[in-house]
């Protein structure tokens, strides 16, 4: 919430000191709406807690209790992540909705459900990334630092820091083709009217490719990790 307030203040200050009423073709209200939605969507589309827990399971050997049961480690944590995000999203969604409605900022509320659907779909890819990081714990210790580095990279690539349409070419085109922009930029830009529907829908395709790509890497690392696993601590 603090970050959102700082960003709101920053955009208000930028427009106050600018001679133009728009930046990159969008007015101050568009940026304020963007920042408010980013504060909400950015929290939903990231994963720290469950990734830390997955790493801890592997490092401490408590994963043994899951490995000897007919269940999937990946699905077990995916279901927990989705359940947690579902509950927290319902409650925290009230805040941006109320503020945007109260400040009369540009948002097409009819686009909110499909934008959120993309975020939920993207969470599967986020979980694939968490799964990859947790498999490093089979051969390394203290892999939590990878989580920090990964989330920092995603923060930059997702458009959470600044709207991706402000980034110069060719970086902008590259970033929009990568699946990471579906975490924040695509859903928020679509709801606030920065991108058309056909560009937004491509987000589902790139997320699917991301899930397949990172899922395959995670599966390979998992198999490799299990061959090295020593069943720690029992």
């Amino acid at each position, binding site marked *: 919430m603090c970050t959102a307030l700082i960003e709101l203040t920053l955009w208000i200050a930028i427009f106050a000191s600018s001679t133009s009423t728009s930046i990159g073709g969008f007015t101050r209200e568009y940026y304020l709406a963007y920042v408010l939605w980013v504060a909400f969507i950015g929290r939903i589309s990231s994963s720290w807690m469950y990734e830390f827990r997955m790493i801890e399971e592997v490092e401490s050997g408590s994963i043994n*209790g899951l490995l000897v049961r007919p*269940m999937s480690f990946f699905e077990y944590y995916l279901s927990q992540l989705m359940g947690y995000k579902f509950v927290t999203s319902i409650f925290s969604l009230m805040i941006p909705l109320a503020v945007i409605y109260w400040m009369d900022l540009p948002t097409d509320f009819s686009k909110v459900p499909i934008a959120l659907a993309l975020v939920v779909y993207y969470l599967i890819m986020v979980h694939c990334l968490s799964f990859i990081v947790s498999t490093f714990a089979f051969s390394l210790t203290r892999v939590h630092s990878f989580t920090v580095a990964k989330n920092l990279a995603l923060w930059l690539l997702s458009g959470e820091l600044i709207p991706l349409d402000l980034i110069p070419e060719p970086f902008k085109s590259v970033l929009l083709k990568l699946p990471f922009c579906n975490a924040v930029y695509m859903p928020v830009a679509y709801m606030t009217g920065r991108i058309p529907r056909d560009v937004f829908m491509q987000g589902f395709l790139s997320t699917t490719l991301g899930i397949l790509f990172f899922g395959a890497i995670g599966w390979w690392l998992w198999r490799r990790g299990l061959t090295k696993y*020593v069943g720690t601590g029992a």
Partner: protein
Amino acid sequence: MSLVIETKDLSRVFVSYEKPEGLLESLRGFWDRKHIEKTALAPTTLQIESGQIIGLVGANGAGKTTLLKLLSGLIHPSSGTASVLGFQPWERKSAFLKRISILLGQKNQLWWDLAPNDSFALLAEIYDLDRKTALMRVQELAELLECKHVLQTQLRRLSLGERMKMEIIGSLLHSPEILFLDEPTIGLDIVAQTSIRKFLGEYVREKGPTVILTSHYMDDIAKLADRLLLISKGQFVYDGTVQGFVAKTESLQKITFSLIEPLPENLQLMDGLELSATQQEFSVEVSSKDLAPILGKITRLPGIHNLKFEEADFEDIIHRFLEKESRVLSPGGHH
């Protein structure tokens, strides 16, 4: 009886690396590491028939838990093959995992923050069990273990003994055909140990699963196992019945006595057996053939009292046997 577990030259070598002290040495470790290999289980060929109760005994680090982890699919082998109920365990197929259970006495496998009843409901889902049948089974097992009153208390709030009982219910909920029990009574008081031992005895008699049991308490093994596997430094050093083992090993006599005054100097009773001048209470184990001359020497000691001698129990015999085998298997030893 059919074979349910079969291994051929199954082995596991753990690889670690030396980490010298200091930051620079840690950094050097990224490109220049000295790897250390430790054979936790030497190539092992084993056959276990359906319904057998195997007591797997060995010192710490002998390879007992490694064997259990391999057979339950927790870890992969370095070489060799294994077939458990017709499956290769480390493939971890659901059909296989639904037919086995492993209880690790030193690890919680139920959910720490949930009440056991909730954990069992979750396990019923995981094992595709009918909810009502699972509930009845929980009640039945809890009654036998005399722990119905704690089923609705958060696991973290239970005593060690109660937690172990909950773990046992969790591991038996799906009626496994093979049960791997790794130190099920470790750390428990005598009352809890006896209660769990009694329960396991009744359970295996009634349901007839194949059981591999490791324990540091020889009473567990002597009372439950019908086949004994002794393991030392990753190798089997005995495979047979408990009675056969006792008969095979040299009969030992345990002599205990006290002295009113300490000895003026150390006294050698025989080769490798010396009484220390600093002690007044003694307990020595000797083979039956040496009993008479040793006893003769002891009774001549001044101020002797509380002299007793009895046949050494199973635990003493095992420890002595494993100690001897461990020396034989040491580098430079021959076997």
